């Protein structure tokens, strides 16, 4: 009898253990620990600065650029668009987003009713369509500017993505699979460049760590000469390995953003950013 109780108890414990030890929470801890161990000299909060957390020279140049940051115009234009746009029904973005302050930390989230991940960019276009306006392009232009304005007014807020409930976990798992899957003619996964090779040089660029990747978007890229959203960057990285990229806000990209944001929980938003 005692043996049986023991057996059942240990089985229950083992089951509990697998649930406990295989979920998003444990994966997040392992993800962070990987980078913290790989770069013990980098301040944990500094991972939001991407490659500039790792490379001193690049950081110096970046600090200089930040004195007159090229994304400032985008913030100003985004503010005008946010405050002055009147939809045909007389409503404004404020009807969807209030003042627009401290908004960024609400996204991305899993919407149980719509059974999908909602990002801030998707929400902007949802708002427009709800009020009879045409959706904006997702990777560039006005939408990226509005997003820059919203990010700016969420600086310092903590990334706090919640993954709970089976549907949300499923979306998270799809994002995770996307992240770890090799794609394209060059046969690379995100993990190949932004984890194992983080800090190493790829042609002229030093590879940034995935931890903190979502904190500073949208980003003004000198190479683009304009501001672009996170999904614009995703598609750039797809193309780089000669994989077909996806449209902005595709389900895959939103799940990927959901996964990556969750990995960066507890770090702070510092967007918009500037990158080479």
């Amino acid at each position, binding site marked *: 009898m005692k043996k049986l109780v023991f057996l059942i108890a240990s089985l229950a414990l083992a089951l509990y253990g697998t649930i406990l030890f295989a979920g998003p929470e444990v*994966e997040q801890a392992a993800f962070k620990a990987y980078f913290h161990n790989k770069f013990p000299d980098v301040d944990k909060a500094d991972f939001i600065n991407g490659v500039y957390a790792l490379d001193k020279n690049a950081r110096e140049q970046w600090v200089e650029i930040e004195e007159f940051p090229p994304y400032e115009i985008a913030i100003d234009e985004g503010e005008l668009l946010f405050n002055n746009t009147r939809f045909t029904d007389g409503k404004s973005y404020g009807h969807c987003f209030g003042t627009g302050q401290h908004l960024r930390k609400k996204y991305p989230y899993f919407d149980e009713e719509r059974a999908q991940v909602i990002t801030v960019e998707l929400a902007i276009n949802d708002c427009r369509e709800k009020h009879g306006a045409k959706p904006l392009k997702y990777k560039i232009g006005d939408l990226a500017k509005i997003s820059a304005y919203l990010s700016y007014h969420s600086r310092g807020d903590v990334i706090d993505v919640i993954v709970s409930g089976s549907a949300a976990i499923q979306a998270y798992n799809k994002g995770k699979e996307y992240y770890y*899957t*090799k794609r394209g*003619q060059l*046969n690379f996964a995100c993990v190949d460049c932004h984890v194992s090779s983080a800090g190493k040089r790829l042609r002229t660029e030093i590879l940034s760590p995935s931890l903190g990747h979502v904190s500073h978007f949208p980003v003004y890229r000198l190479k683009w000469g304009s501001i672009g959203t996170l999904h614009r960057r995703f598609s750039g990285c*797809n*193309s780089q390995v*000669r*994989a*077909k990229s996806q449209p902005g806000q595709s389900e895959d990209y939103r799940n990927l953003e959901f996964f990556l944001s969750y990995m960066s929980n507890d770090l702070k938003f510092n967007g918009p950013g500037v990158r080479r």
Partner: protein
Amino acid sequence: MTISIFSTLKLFIFGLCVFALNATANSTNPDFNTIWLEADSFRKEAGIQGHEWRDTAKILLRARKEFKVSNNEKAFVLLSKARAESIAALAQAARERKSWERRVIK
């Protein structure tokens, strides 16, 4: 049952397309269109599985263009390249379904 009717229908439509394209082709080599359609269907399938490569569709279009102006040799080189890419992309999809999970940071 419904599946088999559906796939029969797909095959039939595919056959029709091949026939239609062959009928309009002005070349002595009717195989081009058959291979082209096959390569394109592989490409699409790779796309459905999230593994289409960046340039395959462009190469297929270029092959078609060359074929139209009777640049057959070039057309076939491009076509076989696109076909090989599509098949490799499908193989990658199958391989990755089994191997991505091993890379998860634990």
